[in-house]
């Protein structure tokens, strides 16, 4: 913790960065994001198993980007990030939302976070997204902190559920997803929490013509969730914030994880891992499979 605060204060002092987007401790098992602009703010910075938020979501917000402009010059923003959050940052860079030199990544070696606040961190309470995680060390960073520790073992419930769904009949599957999507109240918390949902005018807010209805009913709920999963396919890095934010506990990770598996199997592509790899959407291979086509 001391290292982190010292580093943050140093960077601010040297005027290398305009602010640090980090976490502060609210209570014993709960953190909240903080934008630290002064040395005083930096004293509150923490990093532990309760740092659940994906801070990359702030990097595309206009008000946050404005902070970069300090006294006529443009400085970087620093962000304390778990390896999975860094995947989001890289994915954003792959989509021209920012350049590598615009962000100072304070990366942390991570052994997992808890699945929700106010629950003690143990094997069974490990967040679902941490279970299949393969990057405990950040892939990109400007500074790296934190010890390397073992991640507790736990069964991958999402994969199990996906496999369960895959053997259902089409009717059963539709029934299952309809019952889940019917819960949706169209609060769009999933959209707000997702770092990759940065569209200035989401397609569901487009009224002329109305492709996706934004009021809560089964038809609009089905198309909203399908289209969001589709727009994220090949891009979602599996931070799980959407599911955590959803007040109705809709299992969004099923859809996003299924698409990520598809991307890996069909195109050997995993999002947000490398700045040199071209994005999956927007590229093609002449030899892609034609299986679907008559």
């Amino acid at each position, binding site marked *: 913790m001391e290292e982190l605060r010292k580093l943050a204060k140093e960077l601010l002092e040297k005027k290398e960065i305009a602010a640090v987007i980090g976490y502060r401790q609210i209570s014993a098992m709960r953190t909240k994001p903080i934008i630290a602009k002064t040395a005083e703010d930096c004293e509150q910075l923490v990093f532990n198993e309760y740092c659940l938020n994906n801070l990359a979501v702030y990097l595309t917000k206009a008000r946050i980007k404005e902070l970069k402009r300090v006294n006529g010059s443009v400085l970087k923003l620093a962000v304390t990030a778990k390896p999975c959050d860094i995947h989001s940052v890289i994915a954003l860079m792959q989509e021209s939302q920012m350049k590598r030199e615009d962000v100072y990544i304070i990366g942390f070696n991570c052994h997992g976070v808890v699945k929700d606040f106010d629950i003690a961190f143990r094997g069974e309470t490990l967040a679902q997204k941490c279970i299949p995680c393969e990057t405990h060390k950040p892939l990109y960073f400007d500074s790296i902190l934190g010890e390397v520790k073992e991640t507790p073992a736990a069964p991958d419930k999402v994969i199990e559920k996906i496999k369960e769904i895959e053997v259902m009949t089409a009717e059963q*599957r539709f029934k299952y997803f309809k019952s889940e999507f019917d819960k949706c109240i169209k609060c769009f918390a999933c959209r707000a929490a997702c770092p990759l949902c940065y569209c200035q005018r989401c*397609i569901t807010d487009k009224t002329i013509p109305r492709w*996706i209805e934004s009021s809560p009913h089964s*038809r609009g709920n089905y198309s909203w969730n399908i289209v969001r999963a589709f727009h994220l396919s090949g891009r979602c890095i599996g931070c799980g914030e959407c599911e955590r934010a959803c007040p109705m506990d809709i299992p969004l990770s099923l859809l996003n994880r299924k*698409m990520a598996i*598809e991307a890996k199997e069909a195109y050997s592509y995993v999002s947000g891992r490398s700045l040199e790899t071209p994005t999956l959407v927007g590229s093609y291979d*002449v030899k892609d499979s034609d299986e679907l086509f008559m």
Partner: protein
Amino acid sequence: MSENFEPKIVAFVCNWCTYTGADLAGTSRLKYPTNVKLIRVMCSGGIDPVFILKAFERGADGILVSGCHPNDCHYNAGNFHARRRWEFFDELLKFTGVEKERLQFSWVSASEGKKFVDVVTKVTNDIRALGPFKSYKLINEEFTAQFPETPVNENEVILSGENA
């Protein structure tokens, strides 16, 4: 399946290949079922999955998406991008419970009039065997029950007025 069920099929086709292939089917006087209506776009790369969802909402029982063969796209690469896009969307729809025959894809070139006929006939027969798209009709009905719409067939409205 009800005996007199005639499926409603929408085909999104690219202007240069499949639409022209369908024209060729016409000039060759080949016959196929009347169930399919074509919506023309310039390139198969320009067909957004959102159209598919809207078409299902509007009562389509089955959808065909068709374009030029890979390497032959009039715009060089539109169908390559389409290919990847549909791979994901098709998986997603299947995963969430849409029968795989309801959304079908083909590459039909401008000289393949016969193939167009075969494709359309196959899709129509597949959907006829599957029956109406009950799942979507269900969520549609729940929607209209909550939010009663003006009738889709405005003819009725006009005729039931002074002109009845």
